[in-house]
């Protein structure tokens, strides 16, 4: 019995090593002083902070990208949460004509690839000057406008709150709005935090929409597009270690935030998976 558990611990240690190695390597590379692209050794021969210092220079563009992404993420966190929770609550706890129809329509819409809409949206955004340099408000609009479609997980959560609560409050004379605001929402704190967390994190990783909307205008990039260009189109050899530094700077706060709120994330995904 004792021996078997030793095996399990060894296996877990090995797994975690594999899982973390790329991140450790990324951090090591970000401190590498030797120039050039990738090298055949993991630990830098010369340690430096130059790569991080480069990020702080205005001409690198990184600060601008970071600010862009942060702005987008903050706006998304607010607007998207309102959208998602509204839809989820209405579909979960209110009964009205056309509810099933609406849910089926949204299911069908969700099966079209999101990028398909981009050609038209780009055109519309361009009309209002919300592309290239003005990509930040444009992207906020794109991310949030249709975000009501992603209501499933929040609805799954609302579904699990007992209906007797609503009924008791209704008998006491509360309006449906009061039931939502005073009774259900305070109970739904985990799913609110989950929704905010997801809405805040998504813009940090989006490449496809951001690159299309901000095409050719570095001042409109988000971090994903900017750093992608550092490793894939411009002078890759010179920018590799800087990419690593940028990656660390972006990943650290996001990872920390995620870890801090991990409990809510777990609650969200497990609830969503179980209840659809």
């Amino acid at each position, binding site marked *: 019995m004792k021996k078997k558990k030793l095996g*399990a611990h060894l*296996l*877990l240690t090995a*797994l*975690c090593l*594999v*899982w*973390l190695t*790329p*991140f450790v*390597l*990324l951090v090591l590379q970000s401190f590498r002083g030797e120039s050039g*692209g*990738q*090298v*055949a*050794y993991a630990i830098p021969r010369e340690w430096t902070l130059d790569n991080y210092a480069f990020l702080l220079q205005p001409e690198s563009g990184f600060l601008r990208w970071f600010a862009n992404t942060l702005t987008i993420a903050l706006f998304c966190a607010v607007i998207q949460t309102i*959208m998602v929770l*509204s839809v989820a609550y*209405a579909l979960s706890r209110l009964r009205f004509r056309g509810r099933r129809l609406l849910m089926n329509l*949204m*299911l*069908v*819409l969700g*099966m*079209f*690839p999101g*990028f*398909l*809409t981009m*050609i*038209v*949206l780009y055109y519309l955004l361009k009309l209002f000057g919300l592309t290239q340099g003005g990509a930040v408000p444009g992207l906020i*609009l794109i991310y949030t*406008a*249709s975000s*009501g479609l992603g209501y499933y997980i929040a609805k799954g959560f609302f*579904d*699990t709150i007992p209906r007797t609560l609503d009924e008791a409050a209704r008998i006491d004379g509360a*309006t*449906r*709005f009061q039931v939502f605001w005073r009774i259900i929402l305070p109970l739904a704190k985990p799913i609110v935090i989950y929704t905010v967390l997801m809405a805040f994190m998504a813009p940090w*990783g989006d490449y*496809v929409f951001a690159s299309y909307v901000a095409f050719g205008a570095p001042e409109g990039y988000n971090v994903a597009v900017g*750093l992608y260009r550092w490793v894939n189109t411009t002078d890759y050899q010179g920018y590799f270690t800087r*990419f690593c530094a940028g*990656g660390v700077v*972006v*990943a650290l706060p*996001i*990872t920390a935030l*995620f*870890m801090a709120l*991990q409990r809510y994330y*777990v609650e969200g*995904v*497990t609830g*969503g*998976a179980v209840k*659809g």
Partner: protein
Amino acid sequence: MKQLLSALRRGDWKTRLSFVVMGFGCLAHGQWLRGLLFLGFQVVFILYMVFLGGDYLSGLRTLGQVETTRINRVTVYGDHSFLLLLYGVMTILFILAFVYTWAVSIRQCHTAQQLSHRGKRLPTARDDLASLLDEQFHKSLLALPTLGITLFTVLPILFMVLIAFTNYDHQHQPPGKLFTWVGGENFATLLTSRETPVSFRITSATEDAATLTITARNGDILTAATDDLAAAQAAAALTRTGEADFSLTEQPGGWRFEVFTPDGQTVSFAASTVIAVETPSYAYTFRQVLIWTLVWAFFATFLNYFLGMLVAMLINQRGVYLKKLWRTLLVTTIAVPQFVSLLYVSKLFAADGLVNGLLLRWGWITQPLPFWTDPTWARVTIILVNIWIGIPYVMLIATGILMNIPADLYEAARIDGASPIQTYTHITLPYMLFITGPYLLTSFTGNINNFNVIFLLSQGMPLSLDLAGNAGATDLLITWLYKMTVTDSNYKLAAVMGVMVFVVCAAVNLIVYNLIPSVRNEEGFQ
């Protein structure tokens, strides 16, 4: 519909007049807020249709006829197909909204009539506003999201579905050029193989040498040079009926063509150079990409599912220390933004990456391993890297569910002498599958559309000469769609692809919906 008819039959003159003047009945009964809103909407609609909508609708028929031209260095703007189609779709949506509102207005006028007939108090404007937070609360909640979805999803999707039936591509780009309706031509391009009769044509000939243009069965066009003029002429003669076929084999110093007809005549000759002029067909490429998309989605979903479940069970075992630490460490791949982790891993496995670098330095290999350059290697690498990304999700989900399995089930199994494997296949797995049915479904369709993993790791590379439209061996339908849009400006085929992705997802959903009961169970917990 029934309500409209009964309103027409039983309504008084106020209700009947509401069929023409929207909201008249409400106004006549003192519901000024509703009445004015309906009337205002009608006025806006009529003005819109008279001044703009009519033109937009008629523009839909041809998508424009006057091209933009330059006369004496002055650009004379003609029609703009893109805008005509866009405004046309908007107008249709607006008309639908109007018809719906019209029906609602008549119903409300009729209700107002019935209520006042029975001597009941009609809801006033104040009541109407108050009801938006009570009986009509769903309208307040859904108004903004629905508007957003209509403008940013429904309108663009309708537009793009229509684009699939036009010839909008880089040769037909407004405002310079027009595009127009072509019916199902694009679907035919993507779905049916080209079948052309084989033909050998001599394009130039000297005394003893000839250049040939050859059309193959699948539509490819080859050019070849040969020293054997007589044989080339014979081949040209054989293929004139359109029934002949040919084979092409490589041989020392060049190539050998063999032309044969169904009735047994053959001609063969050697060619020094053979150049394939045309890219392969979209139909073939589409099939290849579709197959890989499904294979990928299958592995990405189920491999992660089973491995993730195993890891969860490993950590869940009694006697394993530091459960929380293991989970937290594994979850880092969810926390770190994918463009950081995946881009770095993509570089890690590159030809000049650390993995190849170390293996070379240790002398285990003499050539860099072709992680991203060989089709099979690239596909396997992607699936493996995706395990790294995907296991933690499944592990988190599985952990909670596994702990919910009633312990007495396991107890009973143990007493009956079941082996661990039997316990797993008869208790754990069925329970997990039942509970996580919806997750598996969303995960499968999510993987079909998993742009990030493919694009950040391999960009769909390696490219292949066998595939059309810049498609590579690891391209999914969705990344191919992206390339068609961004690189090729081939909007018409991109639109068809979008429709095909929808068809695939819908098919998967329908099948699963009918197989797994827990997907349907909406109110089980209420």
